[in-house]
């Protein structure tokens, strides 16, 4: 019986986290008499308890057991569903999460918090009579080592029906137990069939035993049952309260004596499979610890079978195409060229589909990121005393896993911000003729090649004047400067900027919005603000679907090929001499209908030698791109193909380069740089400033000479 269970621990962890998520979201939606939801919560808790028991994570089992008992009372209608209990359960879910995370990371957890919650659960389970409040602590002294230093063990022994056929007699076991101490035996005959159905060679009884002993340990008791452990369900419990980091004698079912015994029995009856597995605990204990370590950092994705199926189909097709082509190649002559081209076309198609399928495996519905928000809103609502409703839309919109992981934190920050700054207190809302309940809407949808996530609140909107004044005060903007609404809203993203009157612990320290923007930009995304006074604000986050592959336009500058992300391109055009204007001191602008677009000559910016064609601005090719709401025209020599390129990092072996977001490998094996449009614009601006200041300097020196 020495199966190495530790290999299943990652599964247990993954499933537990899923279960906890389910518990949390269900608890938030829990309403009176909602049997289905409470059953779902109970099941989740139950399987976590079972799993933890199997792997010998006793502290998790002990803790979860209380949660389960509380849930069970709710489920049976013994206990009305009260907000207090729900809150307590939410805190308990946090604690369970903390315990399981501690297992995953092999780290410590906040023992005080666990103990405190544990006591609260005990109190909740025992009703709120004040004298019972004392019991948990008292029980520590009284029952664990009762007056005379005796330990009390509860043993549940449910043998399989054929136990006696293998020559085992429960009586002998009980006699052996009695040698360890004072034994009380209680038989459970409820499973006894009618006399007509009963097989005399089968055993239908189960037993609850209580052993009071000075020196019995769990190992000693288990030793007694050693010969029958495969043929029974056995639970050994020491009567004492939780001991989280306790020695190994504390077992799965550490029922505090204060708890009704019925509850224990009941849960044992349900726990058939899982608790049986607890027998392997001593084996696991040794093996489990070192095994988990190596698995800490390995991320995993749960993928729908349909995605994998389609992948396998595609690989099948690819193999067929490959064999067709290689057959063609063995005996090739020019007459078969048509078949070759069609074969190659097929190959192209296959590769493309394969690529898409592989990409789809990395795609997860955004609900993974959205899931945490109901709880966040719930907690923040409690904290701020605001009544807030959260509406989630487009949860099935899929997003690359890496993007999802990195966007989570900025989203949380934006939502906190919406709660703290966006939604007004209820009395203000009512006074302004709005409903007392505020609404925050999270919406995700696809737009072109990117995904848009909207965080919208129906609060008071951004106070334009307050932001403006603050910016003037901080010296970010000159007093009296006229700014558009958008420019004012952009100020929020300045480092250290906050308009909150009071610093709260939710937000308002001015730390964050600049980080939010930076994180989003690091993902190649952008953020826009839209706000109407009195009606609320919308933060719109625009993100690329994936970080690994990008649709690019290949352009030629001199002898170099560059890739312009297709998503940034507004249009490409041939310049006309009459539309080029040199204004305000040699700034070159191109008139694009109503817009004046500054021209960035890439060859100059990057210091590349270019064909004469691009040097003369007339009849050159201009790729108009847009980033951060700024349009610029990139002067290039030639437009080449459009293609999807795989992004390779430059700083892996080299370092980050301004204006370049990465590199890729072209069909001929050569490397091409991918342009980072926002970076490029910034670079051009820096250059222009530098040129200006050095010009001023030279004028200054000349002036001095005169």
């Amino acid at each position: 019986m020495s199966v190495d269970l530790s290999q299943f621990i990652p599964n247990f962890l993954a499933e537990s986290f899923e279960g906890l998520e389910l518990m949390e979201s269900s608890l938030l939606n829990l309403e009176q008499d909602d049997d289905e939801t409470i059953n779902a919560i109970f099941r989740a808790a139950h399987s976590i308890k079972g799993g933890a028991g199997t792997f010998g994570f006793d502290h998790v089992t002990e803790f979860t057991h209380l949660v389960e008992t509380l849930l069970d009372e709710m489920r049976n209608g013994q206990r009305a569903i009260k907000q207090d209990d729900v809150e307590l359960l939410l805190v308990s879910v946090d604690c369970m999460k903390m315990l399981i995370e501690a297992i995953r990371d092999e780290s410590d957890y906040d023992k005080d918090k666990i103990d405190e919650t544990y006591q609260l659960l005990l109190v909740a389970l025992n009703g709120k009579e004040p004298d019972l409040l004392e019991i948990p602590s008292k029980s520590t002294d009284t029952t664990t080592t009762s007056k005379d230093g005796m330990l009390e063990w509860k043993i549940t022994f449910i043998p399989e029906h054929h136990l006696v056929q293998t020559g085992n007699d429960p009586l002998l076991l009980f006699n052996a137990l009695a040698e360890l101490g004072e034994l009380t035996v209680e038989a459970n005959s409820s499973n006894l069939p009618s006399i007509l159905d009963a097989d005399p060679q089968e055993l239908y009884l189960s037993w609850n035993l209580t052993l009071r002993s000075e020196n019995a340990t769990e190992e000693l008791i288990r030793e007694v049952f050693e010969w029958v452990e495969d043929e029974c369900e056995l639970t050994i419990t020491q009567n004492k309260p939780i001991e989280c980091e306790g020695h190994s004698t504390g077992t799965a079912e550490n029922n505090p004596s204060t708890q009704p015994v019925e509850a224990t029995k009941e849960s044992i009856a349900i726990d058939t499979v899982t608790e049986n597995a607890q027998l392997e605990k001593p084996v696991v204990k040794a093996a489990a610890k070192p095994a988990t370590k190596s698995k800490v950092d390995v991320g995993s994705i749960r993928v729908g079978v349909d995605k994998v199926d389609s992948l396998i189909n595609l690989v099948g097709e690819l193999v067929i195409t490959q064999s067709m082509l290689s057959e063609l190649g063995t005996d090739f002559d020019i007459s078969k060229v048509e078949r070759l081209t069609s074969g190659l076309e097929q190959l192209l198609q296959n590769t493309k589909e394969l690529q898409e399928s592989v990409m789809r495996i990395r795609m997860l519905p955004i609900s993974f990121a959205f899931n945490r928000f109901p709880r966040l809103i719930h907690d923040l609502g409690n904290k701020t005393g605001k009544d807030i409703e959260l509406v989630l839309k487009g949860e099935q919109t899929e997003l690359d896993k890496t993007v999802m992981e990195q966007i989570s934190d900025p989203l949380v920050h934006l939502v906190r911000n919406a709660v703290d700054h966006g939604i007004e207190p209820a009395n203000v809302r009512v006074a302004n003729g709005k409903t007392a309940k505020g609404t925050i809407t999270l919406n995700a949808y696809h737009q072109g090649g990117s995904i848009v996530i909207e965080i919208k609140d129906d609060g008071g909107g951004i106070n334009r004047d307050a932001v403006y004044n603050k910016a003037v005060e901080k010296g970010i903007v000159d007093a009296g400067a006229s700014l558009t609404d958008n420019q004012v809203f952009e100020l929020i993203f300045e480092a250290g900027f906050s308009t909150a009157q009071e610093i709260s612990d939710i937000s308002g320290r001015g730390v964050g919005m600049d980080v939010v923007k930076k994180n989003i930009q690091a993902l190649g995304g952008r953020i826009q603000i839209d706000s109407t006074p009195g009606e609320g604000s919308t933060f719109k986050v625009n993100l690329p679907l994936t970080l690994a592959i990008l649709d690019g336009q290949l352009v030629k500058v001199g002898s170099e090929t560059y890739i312009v992300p297709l998503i940034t391109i507004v249009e490409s055009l041939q310049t006309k001499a009459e539309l080029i204007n040199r204004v305000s001191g040699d700034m070159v602008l191109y008139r694009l209908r109503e817009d004046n677009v500054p021209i960035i000559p890439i060859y100059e910016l990057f210091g590349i030698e270019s064909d004469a064609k691009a040097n003369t601005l007339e009849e050159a090719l201009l790729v108009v791109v847009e980033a951060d709401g700024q349009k610029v025209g990139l002067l290039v020599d030639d437009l080449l193909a459009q293609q999807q390129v795989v992004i390779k990092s430059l700083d892996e072996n080299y370092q980050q380069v301004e204006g370049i977001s990465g590199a890729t490998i072209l069909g001929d094996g050569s490397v091409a740089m991918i342009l980072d449009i926002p970076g490029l614009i910034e670079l051009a601006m820096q250059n222009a400033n530098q040129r200006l200041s050095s010009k001023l300097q030279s004028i200054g020196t000349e002036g001095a000479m005169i």
Partner: protein
Amino acid sequence: MDIQELVGEIPIEGEYSLEGIDFITSGEQYLTFTLANEQYAVDILCVEEIRSWEKPTIIPNSPSHVCGVINMRGVIVPIIDLRLKFTIGEAVYTDTTVVIVLSIDSDGCSKTIGFVVDAVSDVLNAEDTDIKSAPAFGGCVPQHFIAGLVNVGDNVVTLLNVEALKQLESHQLKARGEQWIKNT
């Protein structure tokens, strides 16, 4: 001669005594190469491969000794011209010009960088005791790049500090600004 015997003659590990202090050293092998008539060497264990010269893709606004990047089996590898980096000799490309690709592993991160040299010459066996410290008498190569000197016959080979080679200067905005001003 049997190859095994040859291998046997190369000292790999041993104990040495110098002025009463015991050293346990390992005999190291170094790849030597020429840079403008001078002999240099790097630890052979760092050498990933030796490639013929091919024109790399230019990195915009990089220092002049950074030739650009190449594709080495899907990995983007920067190419540094050692002659320009050390300001010894001219960057001329001949038939013997090669790129020594080093994989430098330190501080838990590994970098793969290619270095352009005039030619590779030999594999050198040197004990730690053979390596003399370089006198601080100027020369174009900054001191921190030099791990030591080894006498080989009448020649002196400069051992390069591979870890120092890994350090790449950050791009200098200033240089570009000047260039821009020149252009306008």
